[in-house]
């Protein structure tokens, strides 16, 4: 086993090498400055990196990775640091490679509907760059104003529109990668269909464990002729869930469909105060339909009928951009608004079959009672992706542990009803211990073998995705040590 034993690394010559590659200004090494990089959007895990490197080009990334490879130093890639599973959490004595300065849009090819970007380009800059010509980039995580495309690729991010248009992997045509040995390779191409193994598909969602994407070719779509947002409010959440099933059952595929429960409605109304969401509603359902004028008009009518039939109290619709954004604003701010209600929040990300919504929400309510923490729910209802937000106070000793346990119970519940551990936030550092809930030993071993091919020394983002003995407790330790006898572990 090639385990990095705790050894004294002499950083000065290594830092000098990084400075030779990216310049003095591209290296952060002061203790207090490094503190700001000790966590991403998930603050419950913190680890200060030994040094931060900010490259600007593929070649600089490759050189930086080679330095790590030569010196056997683990490294972690980070974009905007907004991830919610701790994917960009540093490990002890690691180099953090930050792509924030790789923010160039390299090529825009409108005829062939593709854009080539560096990984630090922000998600909605892509749409901004092509919207004048009537195009947009479909995946739209709630953090789209700030999250980077590189991070989206690593986590295979979704968003409210992935119901109809798919997640990041459906919009990445090709990638330029720096592999953990520092070599530069191209995978995929600029056309959608490629023979042979889908290496691009393998890389998207690999959470930084297979390498780092330095150029990303994205597919862009033509903006729909007509877009309409419907907001329906219900006095019970089951009715909202039933409406979702009925809408899909009727053959309509909305661009997005979201449910928010009463607690999250009030949280966002406290903060963004758009006055759009009735504070006394048990749930609101937001539905966006897009397409040709006639199609949207017909679907809008049918959806309104379905919601009314299921007991919607009122239905608001918006066709113009400004009002549509206003209706969406609360939903987009839901996570951060939770921070307004409570000193800390812990967001979970699980997937359930749509039909289990009522049951799962009731169970979550029971867990909330049992543990004594309030839970707000926002839900990508169309594809069953649930985001429970557990509200707590981190300054209370032991609270975080209880909340993590509660979050774990919710995930186990999702898996039990036939769902999954993660919809779009990734496994990262946060959920790796639950992987055995969902996958068999053989499944996990197979994944480890894949990682071995790209990342044989285990230097790229170690300690993520897969359960590790040190962090997953004694019980998991004993179990997982047996699990992968034939695979080297890091």
């Amino acid at each position, binding site marked *: 086993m090639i385990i990095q034993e705790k050894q004294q690394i002499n950083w000065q010559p290594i830092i000098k090498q990084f400075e030779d590659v990216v310049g003095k200004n591209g290296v952060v090494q002061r203790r207090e400055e490094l503190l*700001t990089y000790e966590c991403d959007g998930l603050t419950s895990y913190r680890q200060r990196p030994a040094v931060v490197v900010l490259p600007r080009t593929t070649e600089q990334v490759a050189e930086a990775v080679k330095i790590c490879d030569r010196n056997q130093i683990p490294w972690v890639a980070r974009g905007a640091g*907004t991830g919610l599973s701790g994917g960009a959490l540093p490990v002890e004595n690691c180099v953090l490679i930050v792509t*924030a300065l790789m923010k160039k849009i390299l090529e825009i090819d409108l005829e062939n509907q593709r854009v080539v970007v560096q990984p630090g380009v922000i998600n909605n800059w892509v749409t901004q760059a092509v919207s004048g010509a009537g195009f947009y980039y479909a995946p739209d995580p709630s953090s789209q104003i*700030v999250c980077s495309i590189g991070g989206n690729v690593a986590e295979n991010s979704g968003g409210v529109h992935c119901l109809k248009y798919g997640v990041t992997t459906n919009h990445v045509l090709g990638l330029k990668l720096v592999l953990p040995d520092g070599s530069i390779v191209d995978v995929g191409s600029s056309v959608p269909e490629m023979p042979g193994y889908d290496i691009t598909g393998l890389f998207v969602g690999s959470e930084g464990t297979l390498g780092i994407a330095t150029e990303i070719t994205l597919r862009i779509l033509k903006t729909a002729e007509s877009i309409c947002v419907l907001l329906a409010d219900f006095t019970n959440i089951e009715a909202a869930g039933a409406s979702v099933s009925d809408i899909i059952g009727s053959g309509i595929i909305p661009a997005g469909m979201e449910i928010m429960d009463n607690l999250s409605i009030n949280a966002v109304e406290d*903060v963004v105060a758009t006055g759009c969401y009735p504070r006394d509603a048990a749930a609101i359902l937001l539905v966006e339909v897009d397409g040709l004028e006639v199609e949207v008009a017909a679907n809008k009518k049918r959806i309104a009928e379905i919601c009314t039939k299921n007991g919607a109290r009122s239905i608001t619709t918006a066709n113009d951009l400004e009002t549509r954004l206003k209706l969406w604003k609360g939903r987009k701010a839901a996570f*951060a*608004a939770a921070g307004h209600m409570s000193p800390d929040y812990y967001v979970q990300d699980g997937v359930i079959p749509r039909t289990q919504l009522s049951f799962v929400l009731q169970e979550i309510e029971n867990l909330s009672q049992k543990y004594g923490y309030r839970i707000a729910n926002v839900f990508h209802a169309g594809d069953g992706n649930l985001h429970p937000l557990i509200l707590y106070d981190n300054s209370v000793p032991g609270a975080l542990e209880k909340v993590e346990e509660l979050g774990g119970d919710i995930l186990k519940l999702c898996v039990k009803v036939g769902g999954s551990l993660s919809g779009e936030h990734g496994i990262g550092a946060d959920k790796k211990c639950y992987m055995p809930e969902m996958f068999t030993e053989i499944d996990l071993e197979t994944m480890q073998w894949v990682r071995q091919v790209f990342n044989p020394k285990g230097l790229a983002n170690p300690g993520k995705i897969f359960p590790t003995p040190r962090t997953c407790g004694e019980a998991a330790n004993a179990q997982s040590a047996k699990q992968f006898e034939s695979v080297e572990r890091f």
Partner: protein
Amino acid sequence: MQISEKPGINSDNLGGFDANHPPDPKLIDTCVHCGFCLSTCPSYRVIGKEMDSPRGRIYLMDAINEGEAPLGEGTVQHFDSCLGCLACVTTCPSGVQYDKLIAATRPQIERNYSRSLPDKLVRQLIFNLFPYPNRLRVLLAPLLIYQKLGFPKFFRATGLLKQISPRLGAMESILPNVTLKAFRDTLPEVIPAEGKKRYRVGVILGCVQRLFFSKVNDATVRVLTANGCEVVIPKSQGCCAALPEHQGQKEQAQALARQMIDSFEGTGVDFVIINAAGCGHTLKEYAHILEDDPNYREKAKEFAGKVKDAQEFLALVGLTTKLSPLTDGELTLVYQDACHLLHGQKISVQPRQLLRQIPGVKLREPIDAALCCGSAGVYNMLQPEVADELGQQKVDNLLNTGAELIASANPGCTLQISKHLQLQGKEVPIMHPMELLDYSIRGVKLYE
């Protein structure tokens, strides 16, 4: 240096904040580290490092409070890199009051951190010059000669001053043209309203505005009087205190605020009108600036309650004058949001509303409208590299709208954008919305 006896505990050489209003841990705790503020932070956009973002700075404030990081070069430079544009406050979905946090941090730096000698000198020059219009005027004569003799061309072409000191180069590069009008205030103390008197309002002339943009003040007064306002301009008014306040010079800011309040005492005005965004934001903050002064606390509150931005005021009371077109055909305008209006005072709709009332005006919207142009008070003199990149981006975004004219309601933004228009060789005019309204009210065409 002595080694601390208790490692890990805040020792003497690990200087931190003092007990006089450090950044409030309760406000710090409202930050959930989501990172949304990174999207509209101008310094993060240019520098790209976490420490130079609001999220990173809040992290550093917390670390200093907790004794985990010193108030030293490694932290101070990142507070200094903040433009104070407050865009993050608008963006933050958790309602973090970063404005209060950074305002509490800046005086702490001035009290507890020893700056390098050149840094000290440049800052003292700025603080002893710019908030005092009469001192600035003394400099005007040599400046006028300097400009007439063609020195600006020489320095800008050779880049000589920039090589000696990037900050002095930056100061020189934003210098507007000095005109003879700048040497004295020409407006009388009381100007009667035209027609029926609706309000009695005070007008604050500003420092930079008074010297370099006196025609904006003239236009503002004409627009106000034409719309039924009797205008009062006390001669004793000085600087509004924005400049020292934004740089943590607390005592100087308080002294200037008291002077301003005194100068309007007994004038009996309904409102106090200001046409510069940065000044307006600080004037509205007087209650906070003088909160510890028992003699002025109440007066400050009352004064701040009367302060209105010129555009905010006119949109509120409504225009009573007839407006004529500014050009023969359509005129495409782009309105440049000043941070201290948009983020500091939440004023974005009113200026647009007024401009749209002018017949023939078509308003365009630029991308990144909420992102600072890099002027930020004296920031472009203190942090020229970051300011230059932002200025260039702003000009690109404004021009990409295809607008024929830029409307800017803040002298700082106007100077910064003019500089970058000139650097890019673009000849797009930039005017204050009050000037445009004035032309429109008087029925004067722009290009006559």
